[in-house]
């Protein structure tokens, strides 16, 4: 034909037209076209051709697009299943490798899914969560900004009355452990004081009592059903009973609420009214002291940014400009749990980083497992070439073949998923221990859709490439029996292996560095000794000053106990600070807080804190109340020369510096050592620290609790060990490092499984080559090197790519710590070497085995 009608129209026709109608319809159209061209020119003919094609696009002509619209589609499906079953049976090792890899990969993904799902559901259950905000303050310290959730007592009332955007505002205290007693029963429980409209903001299930009246009476106490069961053994007929809190105030049980769900970031067993707290704590009634928390329910559609601008000067206005460093703002309560970290007044991540990190790890592992499947399926493709050829010759089209291979991968993924579920079900209890959560495999709507989604993604991700790869072979080529080889294919396989091992190297290097950093923080010299130090609360009758003093001195004399001292500070984290300290040359705008340690004279000795110069407080001396001890950081910060004997002003009183202690870490290693001062406290302190004799802990605890019983009858002794508490500051990192370790191990195992499979396959195909080479005198060693060459190269490349990558990532992570390890060269060497070693062993073992075969066996079989 001299001239062709528009290609697009032909293509369209060929696409939609029934196949058996196509030849003669096309013929008719072409014939018409030729005639029209002669009659009225190409342009018109083209136009009419297109019109005809469009008019042909009608039900009688359009072919059916259902993939398997054949009467025996069930047969085809059965046939496919049978073929893939036989295939798996024939290549058991490949099947197992794929299954093992996918199962462990999917199990990891499931675990991470459960964990992430739990993390993101924290605090999301409140009905009003879209309008529920937390009041916060940015505090300018002169040399930086810190962000706090503490607020002044009158904040809620002021916000509610003066700002129309605020529907309701409530104040709560912090959660504290209290002693509860009823008749002769005693128990310990966590309590919180909340103000009147609390239930309008936070969603709680009230089992008994009218939620609008529960918080009316200042003497009411509302307890959880769990506490009721624990304490009264019943949840019926409890209202009206009188409970004594901390052995000094009686409250009447007014209602029962259902135990808070695990997805609540704040956990407590009972509530008292904030109005009661207000009446009994004068310090909370002004705008200067901050400790309570304030929450707001904003009106529908309130402009939060505008509101934040409006309240920016709230504290300054209320204190007539005195507290000028505090700038309030509000943040959505439901976002607080995941985005709790602030830097210079701006959100800087928080737990969301771990959520992201684990989601990435899950994806990595899944991808690694999918790559195994892709590699092994395409590598084995040569085994199925004949099958493809025969099928295509008898008229199976490409679509059906693609479908067949996808069914193949779907089947495998579904089996793997079932096994992964079994695995998760078995391991979940231990996993819960590691992450300290209560995750369960509840087959709810979300989990099921999630599972189906993961199955689809995995099956498609791993199946789509092999499916198209296998189905594209030309039947003639395949059946004639040429050696099918394409460079593109082997490059793809090498690339995928490299990618897999790059991920593994990054994971291994990360685990090494995270582990080193964690153990550094736990073994670094803290500057004091927290071994065998027990810390207990001072409560009940011990709050009496003289009783407290006697208790302390009794403790020090008992056997098995080395020393005892009181402190308001718990030595783990920031407890309380003040900027009410003046020294000559202080910048008037400086608001840096000094950590405030109010202690008994014995404290520094009990904690083994070393003196740099000067002396400790004199024991049993009232005359020491105008003396002060600083740490080195404080002296350096104030810039004092020859500080001993100099006077500074604390809260308006002159105090004399009598000693300087060496810096010690009371806060987490995320923080630099802050300035600290010690002053004596005459009254009782919040905590008592007791140093026990090493190796006699049980006896020591026994002695303490006996003594406690006589001094503080009816109150159960609660104690913790300081080093345990210290560990808790690194809980998040500890968990992350343990989990990351497991996941990295799984990632490398899966990668190696793939490598193992590939190596085994290569050797199988090269059986003849090995035989011939052996006959010509190659040694086993030569053969091993020769055979492993290719895969080894891929692994080496991935190490070269992976190490710098992990260096940058880890450097970033270490920036989070004020005290961090230096990146040692051996971290990366070890990661690289380990990866290489594992890979080499995997491949080399196979190669060696193959090269030791008797060449006759390899060659005679045809």
């Amino acid at each position, binding site marked *: 034909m001299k001239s062709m009608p528009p290609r697009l129209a032909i293509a369209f026709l060929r696409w939609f037209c029934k196949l058996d109608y196509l*030849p*003669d*319809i096309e*013929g*008719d159209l072409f*014939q018409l076209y030729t*005639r029209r061209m002669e009659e009225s020119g190409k342009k018109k003919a083209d136009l009419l051709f297109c019109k*005809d094609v469009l008019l042909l*696009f*009608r039900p009688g002509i359009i072919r059916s697009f259902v993939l398997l619209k054949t009467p025996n589609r069930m047969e085809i499906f059965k046939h496919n299943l049978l073929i893939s079953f036989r295939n798996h049976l024939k290549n058991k090792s490949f099947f197992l490798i794929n299954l093992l890899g996918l199962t462990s990969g999917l199990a990891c993904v499931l675990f991470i899914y459960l964990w992430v799902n739990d993390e993101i559901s924290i605090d999301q259950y409140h009905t009003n969560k879209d309008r529920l905000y937390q009041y916060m303050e940015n505090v300018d310290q002169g040399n930086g900004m810190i962000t706090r959730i503490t607020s002044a007592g009158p904040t809620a009332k002021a916000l509610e009355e003066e700002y129309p955007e605020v529907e309701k505002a409530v104040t709560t205290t912090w959660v504290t452990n209290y002693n509860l007693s009823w008749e002769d029963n005693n128990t310990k429980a966590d309590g919180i004081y909340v103000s009147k409209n609390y239930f309008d903001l936070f969603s709680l299930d009230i089992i008994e009592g009218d939620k609008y009246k529960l918080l009316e009476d200042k003497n009411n106490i509302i307890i959880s059903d769990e506490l009721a069961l624990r304490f009264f053994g019943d949840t019926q007929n409890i209202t009206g009973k009188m409970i004594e809190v901390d052995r000094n105030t009686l409250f009447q049980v007014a209602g029962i609420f259902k135990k808070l769900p695990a997805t609540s970031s704040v956990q407590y067993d009972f509530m008292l009214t904030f109005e009661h707290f207000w009446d009994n704590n004068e310090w909370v009634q002004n705008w200067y002291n901050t400790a309570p928390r304030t929450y707001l329910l904003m009106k529908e559609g309130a402009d939060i940014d505008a509101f934040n601008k409006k309240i920016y000067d709230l504290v300054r206005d209320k204190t007539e400009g005195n507290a000028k460093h505090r700038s309030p703002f509000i943040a959505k309560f439901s976002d607080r749990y995941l985005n709790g970290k602030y830097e210079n007044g701006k959100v800087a991540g928080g737990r969301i980083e771990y959520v992201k990190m684990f989601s990435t790890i899950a994806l990595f592992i899944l991808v690694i497992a999918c790559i195994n499947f892709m590699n092994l399926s395409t590598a084995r493709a040569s085994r199925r070439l004949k099958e493809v050829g025969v099928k295509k010759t008898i008229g199976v089209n490409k679509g059906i073949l693609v479908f067949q291979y996808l069914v193949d991968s779907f089947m495998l993924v579904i089996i793997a998923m079932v096994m992964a579920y079994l695995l998760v079900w078995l391991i979940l209890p231990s996993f819960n221990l590691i992450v300290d959560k209560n995750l369960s495999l509840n087959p709810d709507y979300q989990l099921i859709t999630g599972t189906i989604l993961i199955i689809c993604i995995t099956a498609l991700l791993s199946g789509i490439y092999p499916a198209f790869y296998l189905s594209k072979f030309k039947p003639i080529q395949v059946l004639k029996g040429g050696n099918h080889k394409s460079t593109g294919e082997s490059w793809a396989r090498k690339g995928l292996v490299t990618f897999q091992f790059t991920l593994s190297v990054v994971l291994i290097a990360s685990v090494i560095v995270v582990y080193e950093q964690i153990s550094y923080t736990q073994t670094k010299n803290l500057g004091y000794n927290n071994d065998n130090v027990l810390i207990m609360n001072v409560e009940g009758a011990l709050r009496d000053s003289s009783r407290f003093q006697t208790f302390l001195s009794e403790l020090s004399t008992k056997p098995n106990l080395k020393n005892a001292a009181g402190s308001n500070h718990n030595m783990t984290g920031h407890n309380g600070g003040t900027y009410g300290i003046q020294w000559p040359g202080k910048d008037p705008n400086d608001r840096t807080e000094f950590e405030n340690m109010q202690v008994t004279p014995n404290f520094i000795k009990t904690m083994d804190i070393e003196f740099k110069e000067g002396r400790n407080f004199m024991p049993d001396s009232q005359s020491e109340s105008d003396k002060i001890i600083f740490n080195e950081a404080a002296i350096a910060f104030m810039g004092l020369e020859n500080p001993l004997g100099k006077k500074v002003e604390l809260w308006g009183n002159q105090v004399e510096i009598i000693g300087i202690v060496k810096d010690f870490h009371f806060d987490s290693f995320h923080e630099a050592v802050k300035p600290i001062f010690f002053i004596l406290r005459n009254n009782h302190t919040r905590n008592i620290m007791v140093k026990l004799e090493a190796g006699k802990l049980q006896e020591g605890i026994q002695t303490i609790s006996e003594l406690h019983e006589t001094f503080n009858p009816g109150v159960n002794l609660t104690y913790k060990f300081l080093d345990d508490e210290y560990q808790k500051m690194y809980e998040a990192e500890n968990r992350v490092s343990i989990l990351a370790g497991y996941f990295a191990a799984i990632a490398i195992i899966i990668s190696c499984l793939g490598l193992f499979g590939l190596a085994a396959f290569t050797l199988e195909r090269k059986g003849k080559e090995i035989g011939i080479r052996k006959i010509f005198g190659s040694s086993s060693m030569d053969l091993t090197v020769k055979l492993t060459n290719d895969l080894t190269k891929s692994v080496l490349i991935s190490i070269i790519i992976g190490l710098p990558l992990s260096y940058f990532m880890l450097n970033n992570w270490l920036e989070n710590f004020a005290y961090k390890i230096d990146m040692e060269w051996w971290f990366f060497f070890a990661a690289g070497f380990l990866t290489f070693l594992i890979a080499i062993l995997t491949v080399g073992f196979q190669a060696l085995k193959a090269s030791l075969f008797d060449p006759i066996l390899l060659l005679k079989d045809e």
Partner: protein
Amino acid sequence: MKYPKIGEFEEIVLLTVGILHGNAYGITIKDEIESRLERKVSVGALQTTLRRLEKKGLLTSHHGETEASRGGRPKLFFTITAYGRNTLADTKESREKLWSALPRIVLNLK
């Protein structure tokens, strides 16, 4: 014997296939209808009707020779089956019954 009811265009196509007697394929049928009845026939409409008639058993088809002007595609020739012929006759008969029953006066009015 019952014969299927066929539509107006189906009847025309069937008749035309008969007229062409042995030389009936897409283009000739189209040309024949267009020249005799002076109406436009689209390939799409014609093809669907032909296939439908074939499916009903009124037509059969066989492939003919290929031709360069057709881009090497074969012609598909259609012939009327006995069943088709009877159906046509049946249609004609039923029309005639009605015509004969039509009062003269009605025609004269026109």
